[in-house]
């Protein structure tokens, strides 16, 4: 098991005495900017709506799952594409999986890049695949950075919440 994502994030963002409202504001702005940039789509909203009192860490959990999954797949894909003879069927299966999880999370850019990727796979176009993989990676890392920030914010909000409850 890799170390939890949040802890890594926390290292770079030490606690700051921000109010709960400010934190929420920041989170909203972050999410909004992600919508505007096309990183996320409406599905992410659905995810947020699914999170309620009974499952407070739901979004974080899903995002963590997604990141683990995506990183695993990307590693596999990098290996596969680097080989002299590319097994396009395998590649396609992985990309399909990534597409599925990214659409579940609402990671719009990654999803679109995956769709592009699959087309190259169907054409058995190695160069195209390599390019597409880079695009996917690019979008993914961009997204992961934002997610990191988001998770950290959420963590802090929750910390506040629990404090208040206590």
């Amino acid at each position, binding site marked *: 098991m890799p170390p939890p994502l949040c802890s890594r994030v926390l290292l770079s963002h030490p606690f700051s005495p921000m109010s709960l409202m400010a934190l929420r504001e920041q989170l909203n702005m972050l999410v909004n900017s992600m919508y505007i940039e096309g990183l996320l789509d*409406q*599905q992410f*909203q*659905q*995810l947020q*709506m*699914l*999170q*309620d009192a*009974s*499952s407070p860490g*739901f979004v974080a*959990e*899903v995002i963590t*799952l*997604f990141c683990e*999954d995506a990183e695993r797949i990307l590693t596999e894909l990098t290996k596969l594409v680097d080989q002299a003879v590319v097994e396009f069927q395998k590649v396609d*299966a992985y990309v*399909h*999986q990534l*597409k*599925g*999880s990214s*659409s*579940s*999370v*609402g990671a719009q850019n990654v999803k679109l890049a995956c769709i592009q990727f699959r087309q190259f796979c169907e054409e058995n176009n190695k160069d195209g695949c390599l390019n597409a993989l880079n695009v996917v990676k690019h979008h993914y890392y961009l997204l992961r950075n934002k997610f990191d920030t988001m998770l950290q914010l959420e963590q802090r909000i929750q910390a506040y919440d629990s404090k208040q409850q206590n």
Partner: protein
Amino acid sequence: MGLKTGAGGEKRWWWNRNVIMVLWVMLSVGFCIGLHCHMRTESMRKAEETLTSMCEERARMLQEQFAVSVNHVHALAILVSTFHYQKSPPALDQETFADYTASTAFERPLLNGVAYAQRVVHAERQLFENQQGWMIKTMKRDPSPVQDEYAPVIYSQETVSYIEALDMMSGEEDRENILRARATGKAVLTRPFRLLESNHLGVVLTFPVYLLDLPDDATAEERVRATAGYLGGAFDVESLVENLLRQLAGNQEIMVNVYDVTNASEPLIMYGTNPPDDHMLLSHVSMLDFGDPFRKHQMKCRYREKPPVSLSSITTPSGIFVICMLVGYIGYAAWSHYDNVKEDFRKMEELKKQAEAADVAKSQFLATVSHEIRTPMNGVLGMLDMLLDTNLNLTQKDYAQTAQVCGRALISLINEVLDRAKIEAGKLEIESVPFDLRSILDDVISLFSAKSREKGIELAVYVSERVPSILMGDPGRFRQIITNLVGNSVKFTERGHVFVQVHLVEHVNMAMNATAETGLNGHVNEVNKKSATTVFNTLSGLEVADSRNTCESFKLLLSHGASLSCTFGGGSVPESIADKVTLMVSVEDTGIGIPVHAQDRVFTPFMQADSSTSRNYGGTGIGLSISKCLVELMGGKINFISQPHVGSTFMFTAVLQKCGKSAGVDTKRSLSEVLPTCFRGMRVTLVDRRAVRAAVTKYHLQRLGIIIEDVSTVNEVLCALSGQNDCLNSSQPGKQPSILLIEKDSWDPKVDVHIQNQLLEYKEAGRIQVVPKVVLLLTIESDKTRAGSHVDAIIVKPLRASTIATCFQQMLGMGKCQNKDTLSGSTSLRGLLDGKNILVVDDNKVNLRVAAAALKKYGAKVVCVESGKSALSLLQPPHKFDACFMDVQMPEMDGFEATRQIRLMENKANEEAPLEEGSVKAKWRLPILAMTADVIQATHEECVKCGMDGYVSKPFEEAQLYQAVARFVVSQPIPDS
């Protein structure tokens, strides 16, 4: 001509056809030429035959005539011998001979003349010359030189008197003749030569005259010795033949030649001109026998000209040729036509294929596009929902709400268009699953409850008792039709009521007949009613379009229902009737009605009464056409009766199947919205003036198992309660109602406000043990506040059994009979999924987590597995799951395969189950829904093919999830767990 061509290519085929045509032409030309030749030879043969017969005839005649002449010369010879030699002195002299021959010349028409020459040997010459008195002369009229013997002519016919005294031996031909004649004793002929004087071609006939009679076998020497002289005659062959031919027919046509062919290599012509050497000409040769065996003669006949080619030998073949060409042309044309037609057909096939492909593409496109539109629209709607949850000022809220309404309308329109397209493509199939009609109607009513309350319309449902509670059919489509009709009715009705009734068709017919029998009376009453008061005996008291739905017929229906239910007990239908049920559903409203001119195009898609309708009321007019299609798919008919400004009544029939009895109680419980049973046996008094409305209320109460007495005024109730039994016959002491249900109409706020006080007084007076609760039935929500304080509870219509139950529960403090949130009224996803055990199968952890969370949100208990195999192990019956969501694309075992396996397991389990538990238990059939990212037709078909019940798109969209889940949760039996 109808030549079949094999599997040859196109080109070869054409080539063949032309070659066949050329062959045909050549063949017919050949045939015609052959025919022509045949006819020519045939005519030649005929000509030859004619020629032969003519030639033979001529030869025979010539021969006969010649023979006659020869015989005569023979007779002359005998005459000479008789009178010249056997008489002494001879009785003949030149004069007598000349006379005789002249007078008998007619006997010898062929002879120029005859003469007799005596044989004189040289020794006797002197004596002879002396006797005769003249010198023997040669043919050249010279005195004859010395010869061995001479043959001077002594007697001659006058015609040939110029040869007298001429020595016949001096002429070469004559000499030969004489020698041969005397040696043979027969008539001999010379070869043809130019006769003296006449210079015609002729022959000389010579006959020997003997001195004594010779025996037939006398030798030549004996004959020579006995020879006395020679009788000769010249045949003028030319004139002879000429005469002869003149007598015969056909003289002009043929040319005759007579030859002496004694020397075969050098035929001597006796008659006729030597023809040009034309071997082409037809000829015939006949042998002639002139009695001289030494000489041979023949007759050669020819046509004077080439026989003309007969006309028929030309016309017949050419006629036949023309016919052949015509036949060939017809065949060719037919063939070309066949080709063209075939080619056209091929093109049409191609076009048809294209059209079909286009059609498929169209539906695909429609499906895709509508999906594509729906996705963003869902986003829009979701956002609007969220927006409405935020703090908005009134104007903003109004805007947002409007936008939401419009969005919903758009979505429903897209769904309708998609439905329509599906129906047109014949892809819409009506399923047959058990469902509860009554709960479906309740759902529909609850859908429109807000609207009807807002408008103040009374919305009511009545389902005949005879209609079985569980029927087999397509609940979704049934709901769609009714929703459509009720929606229309609510939309176009501003006051009055919308009344949905469901009866059995045979039942309705029976009732109709009954009304017809009561006939005049009822009719008159109706008229009176109309003229006297404007209150009609309908649900809301307003006039309706279909007068058959008046109180009388409704009452009849009720009474029939009652009597039947009495007969068969407990509202169950007789099982003897076939397992098909034909329902008659009518939706009656008191709206604006349909203008007469528009009534015949009501069911045409996108057709509304007029353009102003859509402006005033909105809508596209596609709903009714879809309803019509659906009704027809269900084997029913839809029609309507409408009067402008009075209202419309839409009626449709639907053929449904009865549910097998084995499906029984379990099915019923799971299918119906479960109604609480805690009211069974409770007594309720209903105060309602209007019979129809009372019947509707009773229908709902009866479903709860409540016993009802109905009266028309509040006072009657009070009378009854106070023990004055004459007011209310059916009331029995000790069994007083626990609830008083009062219709708004019968509620007079001023008078009845104190009803509770009155009741309390009764209780104190000991007349009643329990104070009945008072419940007021309202149509309009705003009335609630006015009467609120004076009654125990208020129910706002439309009535639904569950609404009533909830109200009663709250009022009576019974607590929840069950935990269902019946008051909310809307069948939300939560309502459907709450408490259900659901298995989610997906290899993608993220998807799995999201799906699980989404389902949990709606109250479901979710179990997640990551492969088809583990799903299989969990779903081995018996299990506790109510549904399964299955990813389609999974490694190892994909969703389709897994579903197939699950179905197999279920079948196995079902086969074993009846042995153990009888037929009551529901069969294992887990609803399985595919989760897929692409929602195109093909995927759906495959889903159905491998036994799935439907599909939801991934990630979940609430509306679609609801649609998919609603179908199986309502229609699928949930096995006991």
